[in-house]
């Protein structure tokens, strides 16, 4: 009897990880807070209002949709909070609040819960919602106007400049009309309020990597690919490359959206392929597409390819012999002939 007491018999898995869903999500939220603070400083308190509306409606719609579908509640895993935050970060500060709330509802109900909830969505909910909003309300989603005191008090009045599109389409010759690179780095330029402050995003990214929440493979492959292609497109102009990397949603997308566990490959090789694919599509859209920004579309497109990437990069079980391709082909041929006969 005493043996039984000492030996706890439990079902597998026996090797446990200290990571929990809510713990990971909490880390992501912590990593997003520097950007949120930066956005509030740059754009004013309306940022907080938009964020609160997004997070609140995301959590509420998660709660209600789970309730309607009679599934167990998942709001305590904080994933809805992260989705709401990421969606808010992808909106311009002037967005009407009802559009922000509608975006959260689309993200949670249509993209996430209709496909089975956390872990089952085939694309990133926040990005899909952003794209649906972008296609539904093109003028509201591209209204970069802000009454921010911080930006208007800087040397160059950037208040009403539509920076993202200009950054994207400008080549080296037009740089004097653009904010300085330091302003780009600190976030003193227009754009969606979560994407402007590169410094805060990088801090958040480093925190996530240190906490081992994300692997740096995807962000580095993604940003590296964009950098290489932009260097070629800009004929070796490093300033142009810097604007391309700091402008738009590249850092936010690469660090926080492309690394979503559900919608990115598991293996290292797969992650690299995924990152490079995102980079190539982003570059192509930025340079040749009619849209100024391609980060969200590129990540969504690569999300859709993830199952195929996974199949191509499945790890070989340890100890199994190398695949003999010739023998396999011969076996297939024999099988076919057998069927014919």
């Amino acid at each position, binding site marked *: 009897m005493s043996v039984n007491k000492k030996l706890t018999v439990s079902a597998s898995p026996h090797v446990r990880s200290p990571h929990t869903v809510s713990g990971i999500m909490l880390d992501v939220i912590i990593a997003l807070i520097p950007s949120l603070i930066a956005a509030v400083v740059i754009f004013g308190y309306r940022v907080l209002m938009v964020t609160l509306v997004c997070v609140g409606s995301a959590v509420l719609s998660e709660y209600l949709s789970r309730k309607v579908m009679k599934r167990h509640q998942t709001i305590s895993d904080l994933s809805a909070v992260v989705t709401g935050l990421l969606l808010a970060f992808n909106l311009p500060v002037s967005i009407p609040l009802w559009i922000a709330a509608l975006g959260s509802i689309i993200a949670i109900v249509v993209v996430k819960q209709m496909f089975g909830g956390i872990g089952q969505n085939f694309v990133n909910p926040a990005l899909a919602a952003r794209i*649906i909003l972008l296609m539904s309300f*093109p*003028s509201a989603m591209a209204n970069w106007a802000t009454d921010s005191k911080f930006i208007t008090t800087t040397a160059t009045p950037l208040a009403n400049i539509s920076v993202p599109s200009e950054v994207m389409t400008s080549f080296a010759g037009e740089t004097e009309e653009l904010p300085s690179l330091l302003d780009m780095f600190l976030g003193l330029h227009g754009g969606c309020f979560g994407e402007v402050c590169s410094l805060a995003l990088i801090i958040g990214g480093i925190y996530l990597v240190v906490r081992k929440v994300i692997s740096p493979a995807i962000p580095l492959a993604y940003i590296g690919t964009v950098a290489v292609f932009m260097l070629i497109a800009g004929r070796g102009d490093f300033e142009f490359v810097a604007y391309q990397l700091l402008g738009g949603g590249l850092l936010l997308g690469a660090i926080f959206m492309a690394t979503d566990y559900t919608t990115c490959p598991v293996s290292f090789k797969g992650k690299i392929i995924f990152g490079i694919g995102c980079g190539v599509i982003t570059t192509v859209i930025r340079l040749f597409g009619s849209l100024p920004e391609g980060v969200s579309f590129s990540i969504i497109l690569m999300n859709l390819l993830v199952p195929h990437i996974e199949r191509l990069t499945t790890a070989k079980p340890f100890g199994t012999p190398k695949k003999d391709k010739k023998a396999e082909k011969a076996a297939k041929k024999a099988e076919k002939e057998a*069927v014919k006969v």
Partner: protein
Amino acid sequence: MADKKPLSKEFTKGLIAENPVLRLVLGTCPTLAVSTSVSGALGMGLAASIVLICSNIVISALRKIIPGKVRIPAYIVIIASFVTIVQMVVKAYAPAIDESLGVYLPLIVVNCIILGRAEAFAGKNGVIASAVDGLGMGVGFTGALLAMALIREFIGTGAISGTQIFPAEYAMIIFILPPGGFFVFGMLMAVANKLAESKGKPKAELHGCESCPMAASCSLINTGSCEESVKEATVR
């Protein structure tokens, strides 16, 4: 065989249980293309229904004369004649609808619903049953189109049939774009499946050999080995 069913059943099966668009998933191309406005959907639905009923009647009447081997070209000629008639009438009396439907009006010739019904029903059943079948399928097609167009036009532009209900700036334009069309289509299919299943009908699929478009020329009809032979064929 289907002849023995009461005529009312031939009509009602086209509404939901065998709705051509939502359950048989036929004719999706015109469905997605013209369901951006209620008037376009109504015009398309009516035009296709008229062609469907007329061609069903004629094909059913000629079913014993048309040789099995050339039935598809024969059907197409009959369908094309009616499409031409309808097109001329629409051009003459409703040029606005003709303009809004554009290429999709002549394309009714290759609409799968019409050829599908000709193959699956009119080629094997009596004239009256075929006419009723065509009417039911036509009403089902028009109804599905109208439902889609109502949702898409209302959410996408804030209007119903051109009458503004709420300001256009609150409308979600994506609903009149292709992604919104696919989204509404999927939702309506789910609703139709739910409605049909609540009546104890099986999920949307072809019901055995009778409804198979290859039935007339199939040597394996009612042997139940059709699927296996198809599998074998694909392996080869």
